């Protein structure tokens, strides 16, 4: 499946120089993504979000990104100028963040923002962009896109807002979508509907997806492959369907510690952390 990877990352480091000293959020990880769904799973502080941001050069100050290679479609992203990177960002690689409320402009209607996202990368007239935006809103299963087009961000629900964000990110037809907990703030049924939209786009358009999440069970049922992060390292990568047979004690511990609906265990196993995992 990954004979021709879309993105290949080698030895990625993200460091923060703080008053308290050097903090390494990501410590030398390597992975590849093809036209598939790759899940990156970890607990808070594992470096999973920084990994997603580092690819697009969006690590906040005073963070510093170093990697041997971050090759996207044959080009090392690290060698590009900020202007060239902007060209790729949004058009070929898009990113969806957790909370739509912070990512949408509050004084522009959601439709205008989707149309704007299209016009930035393709020079078309306003009416063409509007048509395209309406089409995209329909594609993310917004009923009555004509009405929603003229709503402001505060007038739409969380689930709707996240669909608008996804429409915005997908309208330039990116080759790779990085989704950082795109559905964590949503109710579980809406979450599944939003995932179905992303799923269809991966299957239909052959898009690649990096899905960053804390929810191992969700990722296991949604993604093709899963990378488990712990303390800034990938401790294990496996096919999602084979997660049950995971080798690493951390992965096994994470799987076991979440209650299941058909659970009849007296106590949930907790996760004794072995310092050696952080080194391995």
């Amino acid at each position, binding site marked *: 499946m990954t004979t021709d990877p879309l993105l290949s990352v080698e030895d990625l480091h993200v460091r923060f120089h703080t008053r308290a000293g050097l903090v390494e959020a990501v410590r030398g990880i390597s992975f590849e993504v093809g036209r598939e769904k790759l899940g990156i799973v970890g607990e808070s502080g594992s470096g999973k979000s920084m990994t997603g941001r580092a690819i697009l050069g969006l690590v906040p100050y005073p963070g510093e990104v170093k990697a041997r290679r971050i090759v996207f479609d044959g080009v090392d992203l690290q060698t590009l100028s900020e202007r060239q990177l902007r060209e790729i960002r949004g058009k070929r690689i898009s990113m969806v963040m957790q909370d739509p409320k912070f990512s949408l402009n509050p004084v522009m209607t959601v439709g205008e923002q989707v149309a704007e996202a299209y016009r930035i990368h393709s020079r078309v007239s306003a009416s063409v962009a509007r048509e395209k935006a309406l089409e995209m809103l329909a594609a993310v299963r917004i009923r009555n896109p004509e009405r929603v087009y003229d709503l402001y961000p505060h007038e739409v629900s969380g689930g709707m807002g996240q669909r608008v964000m996804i429409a915005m990110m997908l309208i330039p037809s990116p080759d790779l979508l990085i989704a950082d907990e795109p559905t964590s703030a949503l109710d579980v049924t809406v979450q599944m*509907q939003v995932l179905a939209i992303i799923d269809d786009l991966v299957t239909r358009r052959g898009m690649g997806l990096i899905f960053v999440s804390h929810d191992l069970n969700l990722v296991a049922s949604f993604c093709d492959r899963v990378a488990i992060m712990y303390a800034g390292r990938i401790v294990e990568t496996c096919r999602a369907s084979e997660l049950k047979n995971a080798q690493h004690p951390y992965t096994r511990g994470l799987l076991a510690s979440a209650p299941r609906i058909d659970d009849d265990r007296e106590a949930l196993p907790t996760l004794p952390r072995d310092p050696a995992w952080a080194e391995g």
Partner: protein
Amino acid sequence: MDAMIRVKGLNVSFGEGGEALRAVDGVSFQVAAGESFGLVGESGSGKSTVLRALSGLNPNWTGEVEIGGEAQGGRRDKSFYKTCQMVFQDPYGSLHPRRTVDSILREPLAIHRLPDADRRVTEVLDAVGLGPRFRYRYPHQLSGGQRQRVAIARALILQPKILLLDEPTSALDVSVQAEILNLLKRLRAERGLTYVLVTHNLAVVAWMCERIAVMNRGRIVEELTAERLRRAEPEHPYTRQLLAASIGYDRQAVETFQDY
């Protein structure tokens, strides 16, 4: 049934006149002494609003609420708070940022003029699995799980009979969630506590509670035992949909989803 909590025809509205939104609409349930009762639903279902009405935080409701055998009005007297305490969702927002753990735990004792503050603080810290090392720390020196333990200790220090739990683990990592859920289960067994647990997580509620009420748009659509939920035998189609969505991603199942 020896009911610790009895709720009948509870209504809560926000706003006034024609614009009023009925957040809770005719909700009735009972919780026996020593039982763990779950209220589960999606955002806007009214589950947290029910809890705030029970706790006395929101005095604007109509209907009948009986707690510990006594009918409750909008305002509560001081002794009510010795019966019924609450644990909040966000461990980062529920502790005063300028107070040490010790001072946070002493406050309820000072309010109720209870003697032996020192001994009680030591005991309750021990009960929630935080040793004396944590006693004089500020909240910012604690992890999310440790903060939630402090919040539980604060709720327990008045030795209440009832704990109202508002999504107590939804802000925590799963491995930390497991520790807190184990702790809550153990404390209930040791102290014979009655729990009302509000959550959106079906797995958590199935693991923690004996009986579960499923809420949607301000109403209880179904009440069922945890046993039936574990065997995936809910009756109401909304509960079945919630269950399907909670088990994991299934492209086919999504097609069948409806709005309730």
